[in-house]
């Protein structure tokens, strides 16, 4: 696969502060690549470096194999969909979409044909003469994307373009964007702080924190095999226990199982990415949906503990129980499947919770 975007050891300093700190990655042609990180992690700065609005302090940025450092944004083969879209209010829809083609001095007839085709593709056929302020949020979104895609960029950069939409529309646009990307085959690089956007749409996601990439992986791997405590905490929900390694064993297939004693005195068996010597302080992460409520007593090899129900957080398919393990006074979230099996659970009930040692993951305490 050809590499559309290659970023090598890029550093961006603002005074003493490094907004982007030695970031290296490659995006293959036709991929949907996301950078996921909390606000202020440097993801927008990185995007602006690629688009050409800022120059890196160190490092190389190559687009389709050509070094673009020093090239201004108007001469880079990438286009950016802005966070607040930045549609030109002084122009109508067709003029907005045609803006880039006109700058390339393409022939009138060609421009007209391409604009029609592009509007058709994003489902805005017949909107040519509409004013920007006559469009709905989702339509504006599509104009902003059409305006960039019509230039056939090597990479389309998107800076949290769904942030301003309401929830329902955002869910819809997520699916639409992914479909559109698959159709046009353009390489997308998407910046977001919303993990669901990144996980749903992307082929690969880079999790960024404090200017560094924590992990670059497929969405499934990020969720199931986080490589750092930050990724474990940031991607999806996680319950955390702090504790200490008591025993470290390597099972037959090479995976490592730790016995961890939590601060509250519970003993859990859990997997770990690498062996740790007994006595090491660790954080143990466990997803809400990894826990079974009232597990069958015949199931073996489960970590089991009891907890008191504090609150039931009903949210349809995403319902949870907020519970207090009997050891210690802390709260954990447990997924509550909506299959009617657990409808009898009430506040202040004591429930048994079990989880498989393969579901938890341990990292040395930070």
């Amino acid at each position: 696969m050809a590499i559309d975007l290659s970023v090598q050891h890029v550093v961006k300093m603002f005074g003493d502060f490094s907004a982007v700190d030695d970031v290296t990655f490659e995006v293959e042609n036709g991929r949907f690549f996301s950078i996921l990180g909390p606000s202020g992690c440097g993801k927008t700065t990185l995007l602006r470096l690629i688009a050409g609005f800022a120059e890196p302090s160190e490092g190389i940025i190559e687009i389709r194999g050509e070094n673009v450092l020093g090239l201004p944004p108007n001469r880079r083969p990438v286009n950016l969909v802005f966070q607040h879209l930045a549609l030109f209010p002084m122009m109508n829809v067709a003029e907005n979409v045609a803006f880039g083609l006109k700058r390339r001095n393409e022939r009138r007839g060609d421009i007209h044909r391409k604009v029609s085709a592009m509007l058709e593709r994003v489902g805005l056929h017949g909107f040519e003469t509409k004013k920007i302020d006559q469009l709905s949020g989702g339509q504006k979104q599509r104009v902003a994307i059409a305006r960039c895609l019509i230039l056939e960029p090597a990479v389309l950069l998107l800076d949290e373009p769904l942030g301003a939409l309401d929830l329902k529309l955002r869910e819809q646009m997520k699916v639409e964007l992914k479909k559109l990307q698959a159709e046009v085959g353009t390489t997308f690089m998407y910046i977001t702080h919303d993990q669901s956007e990144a996980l749903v749409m992307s082929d690969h996601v880079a999790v960024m924190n404090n200017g560094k990439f924590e992990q670059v992986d497929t969405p499934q791997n990020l969720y199931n095999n986080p490589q750092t405590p930050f990724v474990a905490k940031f991607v999806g929900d996680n319950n955390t226990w702090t504790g200490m390694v008591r025993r470290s064993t390597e099972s037959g297939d090479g995976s490592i199982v730790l016995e961890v004693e939590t601060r509250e005195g519970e003993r859990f068996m859990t997997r770990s990415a690498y062996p740790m010597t007994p006595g090491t302080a660790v954080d143990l992460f466990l997803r809400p949906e990894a826990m079974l409520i009232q597990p069958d007593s015949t199931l073996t090899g489960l970590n089991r503990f009891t907890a008191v129900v504090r609150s039931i957080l009903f949210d349809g398919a995403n319902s949870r129980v907020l519970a207090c393990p009997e050891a210690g006074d802390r709260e954990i979230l447990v997924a509550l499947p909506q299959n009617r099996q657990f409808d009898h659970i009430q506040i202040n009930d004591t429930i048994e919770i079990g989880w498989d040692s393969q579901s938890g993951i341990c990292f040395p305490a930070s």
Partner: protein
Amino acid sequence: MKTQSRWALAIFLTPVLLWLILLIVIPHIDLLIMSLRVENDFGDMTWSLSNYISFFKEPIYWLTFVRTAVYSILVTLLTLIVALPVAFYITKVVAPRYQGFLTLLLLLPFWVSELVRVYGWMILLRESGVINHVLIRLGILDAPIEMLYNDATMILGLVYTSMLFMVVPLISVLESLDDSLVEAAYDLGAGMWTILFRIIIPHSTPGIVSGSIVVFMLTLGNYLTPNLMGGKNSLWFTEQIYNQFIASFNWNQGSAFGFLLLLLSSAIIWLGLTLTRQKLSKVIQ
């Protein structure tokens, strides 16, 4: 409640109406009547259009009139060209904490009267002035040249006098320009001039038009600067009006000129609004 709000309206409206009627409407009606009166052979006042006719018969009058109009438009354009980069720099380029300071610097010269400012220019530009002195000292000039009393100097003075009235509305429209619009245009392949003409100027049109109206009217009605910096070589129509009122003591002729000037400024502003497709009500917001 209803009578109360009616009283409140009356209280707020009264000074405005008084001001409009006493200072604008009544004097103008008086001027209009005066401009249509003329002394006949017996020394009595009669109704006549001869004040207006003599304006068209004397080339010096209408030539000055046209000159004033053309130069006022030129001054407005030049002021715009000078003010746009200044306003852009203050709103978009410089760090926000210096914005107030720079605006204050622009304002500072306006704390002294126009008269003093014009004399400041005269000290710089006159034959024995600072610039001539420096140029001769540097050996660039052999003999001092008179830089005052020509059209170019007068236009310089008028642009300088009007600057602030263009910069302030431009700053306020440019502040509402989203930076990402400029960046988006840049990203989509536009160069500097395209961004200026396709994004910045269309966005700023209301500010440009309102600034231009103010500058144009101030310039057209300016007396001091053309008189002092343009001297006898650069006639301005206001000087004609002054001459009629003060030198010739022909108030009737002066009133006619005053009315023609009012018509001229109204006509040109209407034309400007029509050409830029702006509405007056929108521009003055």
